[in-house]
């Protein structure tokens, strides 16, 4: 039979098929049926008979396991259905067209003949089979226990008692219920906690009468965590607070409790060991040394399929830990601080959105009592932290927005003036600063100072529509590319020529939209996702818009993570510059729709401030 050039050409380019000679390719082509599937159509259902190899000619297909979890997405040139074909068993996965797709069906007999004819072809599919069979659903999970929601670790309903109880009653109930800690409630909810250790230390050893009220010995207003938080956040909290039991709350009240033993299953290479290791260091060099394990851990998290939000939180928590430990070391070198201070994280650290490649942005808010003479102390403190962070890989801020800069090491009242000026006299530089400084979060020291600053900033900003409008206009300076195939916006110069800056053109526009929308809603939430949700709740943007932007952010961050993971594994410095060749057609398509969502939201923002 005469060769059909279009078909043969396509087949010859496929992995596996490239091992076949022209006659073998022609023999395959002759045994192909072509089918068209609309978006949403089932191709193979779990348990169905399959007698063909499915090859995607165009479009995209999703494989789902029995439980409906997505296993993988396939695009042009990918094959599926070979596991059932090769093992002569019913299809294991469910395949669904997620775009309108053209699929070639190669007859099973012809496929078998090709495998007999070419060893290389056969080997390729045997390897592909073992890959496919070991594939796990791609739902984001941290390795081990720590990626779960805290609520899933709670094994029983909360064991609690009212504040009116005596110590003896509490101890008796703990024995009856076989628990090592008891939550104490009043009319308003959780107000204290008592543990086995408290009974030992505060009652028996201190010789306190057991008919005293439990309120005498309980730990008041204990730390607690929301049931929807990730388990690793709970573990961090317990490690940092040096506590063994953590109450879990939910909107409606108490959910239960988690204890350190719930985390016993953690593997030794787990990130939490790094946190605890950093906490043991007494010198800046020791902290830097401990941080050498960070890139490996980041890759580990990515491999266990952490999403952008999880990874951002993870890296930020390590940065926070490093910052706190360096402050502790500095304080032990230079003595206790002469007045109260708050160490403030700005930018991506402030937002819990750091990536494997992040600069440091930080500042010091000092108490109003601080004198000029005190500055010497804080300059030394800032230098230790800033140098230490740099040595750990969080390089100095190119714009010198760091506490080591005297300009960003001021008493609270001056900070209030800074912000007031930025908001009321919004020049270009002021807007630039506002962008960084609005993402402020207290990492160590007196959080009261930061709360007070935030409150005054929020009131200033919400009233000032002109400032918000200028922020909105400013946010347009980085626009996502219009399209991918024909209008791919690449940086035209510099070392990253012909690459796309995912941060500048993808992530930053979303971050800015979220910041402005939440300010307009009078919210000073800190993470981009929370800001969008808060803005939607305040009807500043629609729920759909918020959800779409969060999806877009998830997707772009995921791409950046994978890109940076490849770089880390190759021993290179991670960056934000993605080369188009790294992207499959499906990914390009998805990125294109993510970008178009960002553009829609940008123009909605312009309309909101009548700038369109």
């Amino acid at each position: 039979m005469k060769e059909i050039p279009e078909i043969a050409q396509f087949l010859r380019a496929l992995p596996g098929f490239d091992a076949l000679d022209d006659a073998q390719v022609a023999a395959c082509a002759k045994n192909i049926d072509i089918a068209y599937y609309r978006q949403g159509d089932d191709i193979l259902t779990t348990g169905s008979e399959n007698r063909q190899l499915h090859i995607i000619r165009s479009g995209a297909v999703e494989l789902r396991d029995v439980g409906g979890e997505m296993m993988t997405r396939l695009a042009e040139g990918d094959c599926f259905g070979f596991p059932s074909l090769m093992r002569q068993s019913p299809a294991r996965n469910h395949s669904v067209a997620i775009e309108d797709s053209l699929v070639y069906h190669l007859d099973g007999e012809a496929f078998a003949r090709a495998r007999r004819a070419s060893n290389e072809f056969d080997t390729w599919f045997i390897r592909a089979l073992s890959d496919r069979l070991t594939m796990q659903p791609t739902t984001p999970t941290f390795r081990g226990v720590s990626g779960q929601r805290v609520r899933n670790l709670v094994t029983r309903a909360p064991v609690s008692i009212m504040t009116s109880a005596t110590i003896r009653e509490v101890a008796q109930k703990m024995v009856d219920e076989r628990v090592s800690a008891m939550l104490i409630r009043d009319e308003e909810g959780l107000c204290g906690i008592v543990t086995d250790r408290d009974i030992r230390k505060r009652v028996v050893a201190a010789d306190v009468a057991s008919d005293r009220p439990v309120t005498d010995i309980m730990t008041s207003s204990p730390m607690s965590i929301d049931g929807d938080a990730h388990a690793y956040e709970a573990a961090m909290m317990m490690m940092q607070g040096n506590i063994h039991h953590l109450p879990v709350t939910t909107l409606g009240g108490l959910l239960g409790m988690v204890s350190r033993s719930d985390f016993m299953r953690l593997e030794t290479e787990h990130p939490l060991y790094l946190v605890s290791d950093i906490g043991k260091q007494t010198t800046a060099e020791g902290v830097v040394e401990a941080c050498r394990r960070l890139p490996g851990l980041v890759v580990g998290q990515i491999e266990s399929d952490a999403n952008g939000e999880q990874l951002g939180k993870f890296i930020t928590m390590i940065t926070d830990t490093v910052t706190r430990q360096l402050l502790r070391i500095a304080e032990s070198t230079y003595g206790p601080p002469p007045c109260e201070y708050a160490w403030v994280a700005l930018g991506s650290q402030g937002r819990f959105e750091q990536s494997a490649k992040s600069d440091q942005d930080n500042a010091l808010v000092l108490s109003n009592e601080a004198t000029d003479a005190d500055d010497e102390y804080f300059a030394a403190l800032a230098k230790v932290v800033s140098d230490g962070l740099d040595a750990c890989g969080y390089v100095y801020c190119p714009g010198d927005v760091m506490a080591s800069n005297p300009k960003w090491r001021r008493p609270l009242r001056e900070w209030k003036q800074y912000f007031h000026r930025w908001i009321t006299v919004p020049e270009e530089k002021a807007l630039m600063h506002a962008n960084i400084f609005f993402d402020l979060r207290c990492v160590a020291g007196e959080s009261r100072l930061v709360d007070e600053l935030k409150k005054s900033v929020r009131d200033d900003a919400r009233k000032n529509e002109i400032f918000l409008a200028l922020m909105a206009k400013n946010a347009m300076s980085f626009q996502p590319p219009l399209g991918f195939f024909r209008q791919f916006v690449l940086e035209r110069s510099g070392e990253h020529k012909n690459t796309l800056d995912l941060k500048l053109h993808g992530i930053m526009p979303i971050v800015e939209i979220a910041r402005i929308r939440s300010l307009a809603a009078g919210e000073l939430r800190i993470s981009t996702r929370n800001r969008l949700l808060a803005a939607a709740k305040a009807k500043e943007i629609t729920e759909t818009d918020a959800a779409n932007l969060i999806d877009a952010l998830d997707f772009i961050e995921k791409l950046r993570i994978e890109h940076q993971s490849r770089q880390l594994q190759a021993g290179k410095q991670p960056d934000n510059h993605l080369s188009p060749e790294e992207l499959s057609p499906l990914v390009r398509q998805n990125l294109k729709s993510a970008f178009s969502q960002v553009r829609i939201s940008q123009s909605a923002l312009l309309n909101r401030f009548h700038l369109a």
Partner: protein
Amino acid sequence: MRYSWLKARRWWSSRRQVPAPFDELLARPMPDPSRLLADIELVSLDIETTGLDPASADMLSVGWVIVRNGRVDLGTAVSHIVRPSSGVGASASVHGLTDTVVGAGLDWGVVLDKIVGVLTGRVLVVHHAGLDHALLDRMCAQRYGSRLLVPVLDTLAIEHRRQQQKHHLEENASLRLSDLRDAYGLPRYSAHDCLVDAIATAELVLAIASHRHAETLGELLA
């Protein structure tokens, strides 16, 4: 041609003695117009000609493929080069066919018999049917004394009607095969090989059938 009229014409033609294989084409019932596109057998066909006037143009080459059970069966893909009565002339540069290649082809009557054979009991699918259909009619009249008389689906006409019905915002949206394929998310093929065009049209008709799954053959013939 409307289905009922086509049926009448076939009945009329079949009363006379017609040569094989055309007699079989007339004897075999046509697919019922109430059936869905996905349920009937189609022949997607494309012809390269020596010119644009059906009265004088000759068939240079032809390619076709059968669509059944909603799938394009590449095992049925066939193409033939036709030995013309006169030289290839100017259009050779368009089709990449030279006199030497064409000279090695089959006699047009032999090829037409094959076309009639494959169309028996099936529906012809052509993109922009005008010229190809008129040419086939003329050749059939010459060889069998009757026009072709099979149901013809013209993918261009179907899409044209759809655009008119929907009062499409984009006026004059392109109806070219490659543009319509783009619109349905089908891959790009290099043009001007009649077999590739036949396959391309076959895939397009699958896409149309899939997007308009509620419509019957009769409605699409319109």
